């Protein structure tokens, strides 16, 4: 079980080589196989998360949630997506047609690209990049541009306001997000995700960096545009923000991309703070990739829990909180971590 996926990959490689392919070609094909595997996982989990969100919301409101379509309502999202596919994609007259259609096409690109460096288990990373964290942050923040692009192309006042908010919110919360991660990087001295997880063998960084984790969590919720930071969509104010003019599958792409982003920040939180695929209390009889997914889904649950507890905050509160509270705190966290590490090293020596 532990090496299930690793042995599938190596088995596929030997199979391809025995079929007469050169080493390089079979390596390439195995890489494609890995990426397709991740792609399938991400898309299925986006579907699953819509269902999970509805169930969590229902349970927190003393309801049952979807339970009619399929066993326990598991096929509800599939049915919804089927409906959305069958809908017409309406393109309003005064939109910038090319950009308008480009938005939903591109929106999945940054999150899916980022998952290439995510370590799903021991030795289960598609591309073991030594600047993994940097790549992760750099590519993930690209989605701001795409949401802005689609909001602008819609030629609608609500879309435009929504995209302005996206840019403002993403840029201001990118700061504390990255600064809170710096603490972890100071402790490990590496940007490689696998090495960061290996450094958490004994103690998870949530214990060494509680403040960093808290800041990361808040900034991550803001980055994914979810309540209480869902000003971007803010149904009661600006209808659906940048996605107002989209219909059918165009809208569904944005909708599902939101959940992919949630998986993204949860994977990141698990990797950086919750010990990745490390088993707690040496419970190594459960495979590492199950531990990883378990932690990811606990993180996702926490984010959903926030959504169904807190009301939306105001724009000025959002900015104030980001720049006046989170950024100073995260800078303080970096200083404290640096001093702590220095003291630890001098005493330890």
């Amino acid at each position, binding site marked *: 079980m532990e090496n299930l996926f690793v042995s599938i990959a190596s088995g596929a490689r030997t199979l391809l080589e025995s079929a007469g392919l050169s080493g390089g070609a079979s390596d390439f094909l195995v890489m494609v196989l890995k990426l397709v595997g991740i792609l399938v996982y991400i898309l299925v989990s986006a579907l699953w998360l819509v269902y999970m969100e509805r169930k*969590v919301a*229902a*349970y*927190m*409101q*003393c*309801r*049952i949630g979807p339970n009619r379509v399929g066993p326990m309502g598991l096929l509800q999202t599939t049915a919804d997506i089927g409906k959305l596919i069958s809908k017409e994609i309406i393109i309003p007259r005064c939109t910038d047609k090319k950009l308008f259609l480009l938005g939903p096409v591109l929106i999945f690109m940054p999150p899916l690209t980022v998952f290439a460096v995510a370590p799903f288990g021991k030795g289960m990373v598609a591309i073991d990049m030594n600047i993994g964290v940097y790549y992760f942050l750099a590519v993930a923040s690209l989605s701001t541009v795409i949401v802005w692009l689609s909001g602008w192309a819609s030629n609608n006042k609500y879309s435009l306001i929504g995209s302005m908010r996206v840019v403002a919110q993403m840029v201001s919360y990118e700061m504390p997000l990255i600064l809170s991660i710096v603490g972890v990087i100071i402790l490990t001295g590496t940007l490689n995700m696998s090495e960061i997880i290996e450094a958490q063998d004994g103690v998870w960084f949530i214990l060494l960096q509680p403040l960093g984790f808290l800041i990361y969590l808040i900034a991550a919720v803001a980055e994914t545009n979810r309540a209480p930071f869902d000003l971007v969509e803010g149904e009661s104010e600006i209808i659906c923000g940048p996605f107002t003019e989209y219909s059918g599958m165009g809208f569904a792409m944005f909708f599902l991309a939101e959940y992919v982003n949630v998986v993204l920040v949860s994977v990141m939180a698990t990797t950086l703070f919750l010990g990745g695929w490390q088993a707690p209390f040496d419970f190594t009889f459960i495979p590492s990739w199950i531990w990883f997914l378990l932690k990811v889904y606990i993180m996702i649950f926490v984010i959903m*829990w*926030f959504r*169904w*507890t*807190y009301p939306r905050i105001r724009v000025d509160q959002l900015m104030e909180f980001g720049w006046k509270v989170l950024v100073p705190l995260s800078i303080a966290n970096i200083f404290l971590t640096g001093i702590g590490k220095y003291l630890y090293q001098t005493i330890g020596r």
Partner: protein
Amino acid sequence: MYGKGLIKGLGITIRHFFKPKVTVQYPEQRLPLPDRFYGRPEFYYDKCIACNQCVNACPNKVIKLETETVDKKKVVTNYEFDQQYCLFCGMCEEACPKDAIKFSNDFELTQYHRPDIKMQFVTPEQIEKKKEEIKQAAAAKAAAEAAKAKEAAKENPEGTGKEEA
């Protein structure tokens, strides 16, 4: 302290998460309805004496009653209940001296076609049956009377020309 309320809020939602759910799975499970519930009206053809009191009691003129006189007796030929205008006040039920109209517990009143909203309670078979019954009863009565008269004539042949009181 800052953030105390936030933690309290999280506590409330997680407690609700584990609480038993209140949802009733409607078409399969139903909540019990009170006995005095005003749902779909029911009409008992045989009880109706065509007194027209329900028609007069109705504030919205929902009920239409048509009768036909057969052998000096009124037969209800049409009892129409235009349910879309009914406000379920129960006045007709109260006015009826014979409990011929009653509101049941059935609240699923939606219809697929507009004409179906108008409820027709009386079927032609019922009318035929009723007419037949009245005729038979009249005939039986006439026969009984004739028999009685014959017997009376037998007992005292003198009074043949005299009709009995």
